[in-house]
């Protein structure tokens, strides 16, 4: 895969993350971090900088290594090799209890035998704080998350959203420097998730500490992150802002995983001054050459975002970046519609405004011309 390039030297996207960092060693740094379980390499030579005060989402399918990274940062797994530094100091070998990181675990992992207050005050109790002091602080934190009325309830007597708040209060009361969140919304109903996203984001801004959030949900990552780290196979595929990740996927995996991309393959047929014409599986493409130099015969993979595809009734492709396809199905999504098409053996997808639903549903089974601007053709690494 293309990510092999990153093994030796951090790819450009890693450098980019670093470039955006504040000067000096503030924040969390992963240095060539590797974790091997028996015969599986879960995390493969990952280097990453996370600025203090930023909201970073590790995004990837299950088994991509994102949770393992989080667990290593939290101290619940030991790295096979590499280093984890916080503000320039290594965390490796320090037990979780002594780390300035705390974790909101998947399914919250509340103490079922303790009350809300007992859960929240646990961290302070372990620090050896006096009963009076810690109960006051815990109470303040319980107030902050709006659960003071429930303070003597046990977790089983709370709703999912309330449990989540307890989990947050329990870790925040200890004043961590980095908050680690492992699929924090996995147990929540959809509408509640939407609300908690906003709350969590606000909370992070208020606290000004780094949040590292692990999820497999693209939409969640896009809506919350300052920076998204897309992972697969134990390696970083791309690091970037939500807009960069969705508009400029770096490789086939990211384009496919983020969804709503048309991934097209072909070989360069002709190179002009500022454009290369590609003979692709669905027809001819014109792509801006930009900083890339292409030569005739080069094999290429590109992505065209579904919402950059225009559709018009017609049977003739007149120029590059126009493809004749048959409408297979339409999908109504509320504010947008999806039009699924077949171009020969290949699938094409367009996302259009809702207003075109009636027009498009009449075209099912009929030919259309799908077109897009050359500037919307994104060259992918394989």
């Amino acid at each position, binding site marked *: 895969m293309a990510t092999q390039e990153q093994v030796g030297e951090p790819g450009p996207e890693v450098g980019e993350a670093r470039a955006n960092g504040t000067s000096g060693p503030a924040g969390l740094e992963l240095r060539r971090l590797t974790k091997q379980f028996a015969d599986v390499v879960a995390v493969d030579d990952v280097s990453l900088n996370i600025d203090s005060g930023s909201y970073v989402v590790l995004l990837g399918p299950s088994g991509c290594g994102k949770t393992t990274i989080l667990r290593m940062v939290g101290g619940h797994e030991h790295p096979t090799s590499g280093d984890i530094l916080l503000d320039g100091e290594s965390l490796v070998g320090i037990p979780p209890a002594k780390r300035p990181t705390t974790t909101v675990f998947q399914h919250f992992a509340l103490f*079922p035998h303790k009350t809300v207050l007992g859960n929240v005050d646990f961290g302070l109790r372990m620090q050896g704080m006096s009963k009076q002091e810690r109960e006051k602080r815990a109470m303040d934190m319980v107030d902050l998350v709006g659960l003071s009325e429930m303070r003597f309830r046990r977790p*089983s007597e709370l709703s999912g959203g309330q449990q989540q708040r307890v989990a947050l209060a329990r870790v925040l009361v200890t004043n961590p420097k980095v908050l680690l969140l492992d699929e924090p919304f996995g147990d929540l*109903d959809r509408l509640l998730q939407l609300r908690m996203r906003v709350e969590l984001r606000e909370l992070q801004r208020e606290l000004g500490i780094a949040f590292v959030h692990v999820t497999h949900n693209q939409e969640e990552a896009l809506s919350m992150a300052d920076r998204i780290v897309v992972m697969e196979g134990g390696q970083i595929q791309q690091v970037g802002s939500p807009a960069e990740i969705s508009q400029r996927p770096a490789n086939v995996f990211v384009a496919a995983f983020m969804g709503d991309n048309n991934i097209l393959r072909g070989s360069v047929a002709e190179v002009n001054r500022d454009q290369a014409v590609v003979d692709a599986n669905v027809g001819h493409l014109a792509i801006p050459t930009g900083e890339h130099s292409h030569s005739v015969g080069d094999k290429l993979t590109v992505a065209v975002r579904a919402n950059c595809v225009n559709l018009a009734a017609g049977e003739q492709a007149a120029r590059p970046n126009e493809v004749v396809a048959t409408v297979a199905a339409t999908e109504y999504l509320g504010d947008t519609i999806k039009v699924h098409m077949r171009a020969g053996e290949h699938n094409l997808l367009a996302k259009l405004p809702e207003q075109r639903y009636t027009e498009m549903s009449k075209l099912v089974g009929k030919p259309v011309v799908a077109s897009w601007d050359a500037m919307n053709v994104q060259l992918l690494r394989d």
Partner: protein
Amino acid sequence: MTGEEPPRETLSSERELPGGIAVSDATAAEIYGEEVPAARAAKTAPGASKLVTFLWALPGTVWLILFLVAPVIVVLVVSFFTGTITGFSKTWTTDNYTTIFSSTSQYLDTLGKVARNAAIVTVVCLLIGYPVAYFLAVKVKKVQYSFALFIIALAPFFTSTLIRVESWIPTMGEHGAVNEILTKIGLINHPLSILLFSDFAVSVALVQLLVLFMVTPIFFQLAALDQSAIEAARDLGASGWKVFLHVTLPLTRAGIMIGSVFVFVLAMGDFGTYRLIGGGKVGSIGVNISNLVSLLQYPQAAAQAAVLVVAMVIGVVLLLRFAKLEQGF
């Protein structure tokens, strides 16, 4: 945690992505948010399933009525009959109970002793059993190994209780293996008589017999323990010992209590061990009852049994009170 898991979002959830959906807090809360899981679970049990619930309860109920409630009633009734030399006559009397509580009776002394022994045996079983269960469930990393070791620990139960009790005699007797070895290596000059036919010997034998009743429930509870709660405790700054004290131990309280009830009740009602290991020198209510039955003194035996049951119930209730089992943990 709570029972049902809400459905997970799948990777390809575009269909239900409503983009920038704007739902007011109040609406979200009304539709989903603030409903307590228990209430939700209660709603999903409609009236139609009452029959199913009844059918599930039926076998256990029938069993308990036939083999627990009915015999207890019979025992209670018989305990108020008048004893005769060949059994009883159906004349009502409370003499059997006055005999038990009369000042000349040894019954309460014996009951007190048995209860004390049972309590000691329970505590010793806990002190031995908890580490065993902890080792099997937590320290042995591979599940296969921990279950294999657990089965091996159960091996003594493959033989009958009587044989295991009987084998204490050649082991612990005056000329038994332990005394012989201790004499040979010069640790003692004369065989220890305390090893057999004594309260001590009975207690040791009871621990050996009953310790697995303590190990088993604790083992299963430890094995099912939510590891993430333990990780969370470590994450929040708890050292190994504190994790055990504040999380592991409270979360296995139910196992400890169930084990304790088993051991306490079995130790208190025991008669085989007391008869064989105690050798007639150490009395137990079980031995008393068995003697009375062999003398055909059924009403007296029944009364003694009834009082024993009441005493055990009191003991168990005290234990459960202490455990606050009704709180769920």
